[in-house]
């Protein structure tokens, strides 16, 4: 695996693991509070919808000429990356609550317990079905977007798909084994790293797609990534000074969710 291939694998793996953790939390809440069978149907229907979307978008994305693809995807990745970066910096600086899977799980659990039971077609519990379906589809869409854009741009969709599959399978296996939200996963730190990588690749491919030439070609990625990370961390440091409430201990870029 080349340096760029390694970065591609790491970026896709981390991004997909984060999305999978979020989807697993929702499905666990639906299954635990309501009905595992219906939640399972929802997962199946969500995966089927994702497969249809991938089958429709995949060939279309890979058929676009590389220059135009890099321009389009570079721009999209950069907008996407800056969205993630914005939230990551706000969280790390104390201006936004940290993403807490345990709290999200409890919230979903309470909502699921209070909803009315209703069966529709062959689905015993419609609420569990739709909750799981939406969770898998919405989080899965981000996975599909990341795999297709990174893979097509790097001319290595199989590597991007492999990274995504390993990440999702790993998260699902752990989720099924412990039957609890994966609150020990350092999700906020992972989101910060993913934001840096999406922004880095967005800057690089966007500029290349717009016909700019990077000094050092692909080697420029090794310079852009640490500069983006340092810039984001410096913004965290500046914003911490005006955090709405003093937190004790200081809200570090935490290594484990609480």
């Amino acid at each position, binding site marked *: 695996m080349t340096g760029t291939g390694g970065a591609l694998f790491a970026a896709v793996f981390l991004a997909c693991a984060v999305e999978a953790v979020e989807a697993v939390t929702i499905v666990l809440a639906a299954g635990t509070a309501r009905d595992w069978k219906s939640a399972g149907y929802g997962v199946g229907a969500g995966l089927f919808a994702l497969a249809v979307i991938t089958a429709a978008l995949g060939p279309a994305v890979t058929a676009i000429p590389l220059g135009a693809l890099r321009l389009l995807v570079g721009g999209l990745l950069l907008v996407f990356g800056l969205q993630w970066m914005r939230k990551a910096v706000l969280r790390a600086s104390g201006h936004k609550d940290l993403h807490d899977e345990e709290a999200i799980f409890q919230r979903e659990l309470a909502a699921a317990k209070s909803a009315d039971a209703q069966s529709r077609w062959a689905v015993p519990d419609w609420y569990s079905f739709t909750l799981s379906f939406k969770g898998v589809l919405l989080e899965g869409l981000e996975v599909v977007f990341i795999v297709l854009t990174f893979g097509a741009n790097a001319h290595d969709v199989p590597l991007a798909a492999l990274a995504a599959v390993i990440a999702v399978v790993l998260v699902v296996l752990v989720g099924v084994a412990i039957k609890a939200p994966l609150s020990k996963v350092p999700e906020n730190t992972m989101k910060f790293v993913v934001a840096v990588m999406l922004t880095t690749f967005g800057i690089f491919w966007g500029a290349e797609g*717009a016909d*700019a030439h990077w000094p050092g070609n692909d080697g420029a990625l090794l310079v852009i990534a640490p500069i983006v990370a340092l810039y984001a961390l410096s913004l965290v440091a500046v914003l911490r000074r005006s955090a709405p409430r003093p937190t004790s201990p200081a809200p570090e870029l935490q290594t484990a969710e609480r």
Partner: protein
Amino acid sequence: MRTLTQRLRAFGAFWYDFVVGDDWRVAVVVVVALAATFGVSKTSIAAWWIMPAAVVIILPVSLWRARKKS
């Protein structure tokens, strides 16, 4: 029952939120930066610095606006 217009509006809102997100200014700056890079790349001046410069400018602006809201 939701009408077709409501469904289309919800569909459009979903994709707007998915792609553009909380701050449309970020998307506008990225598009302008891409256009500027393309324009400058057709001259003898190096154009690679425009995208990083756009990020350096828009990220703190977007953060400051979000901080004000919070």
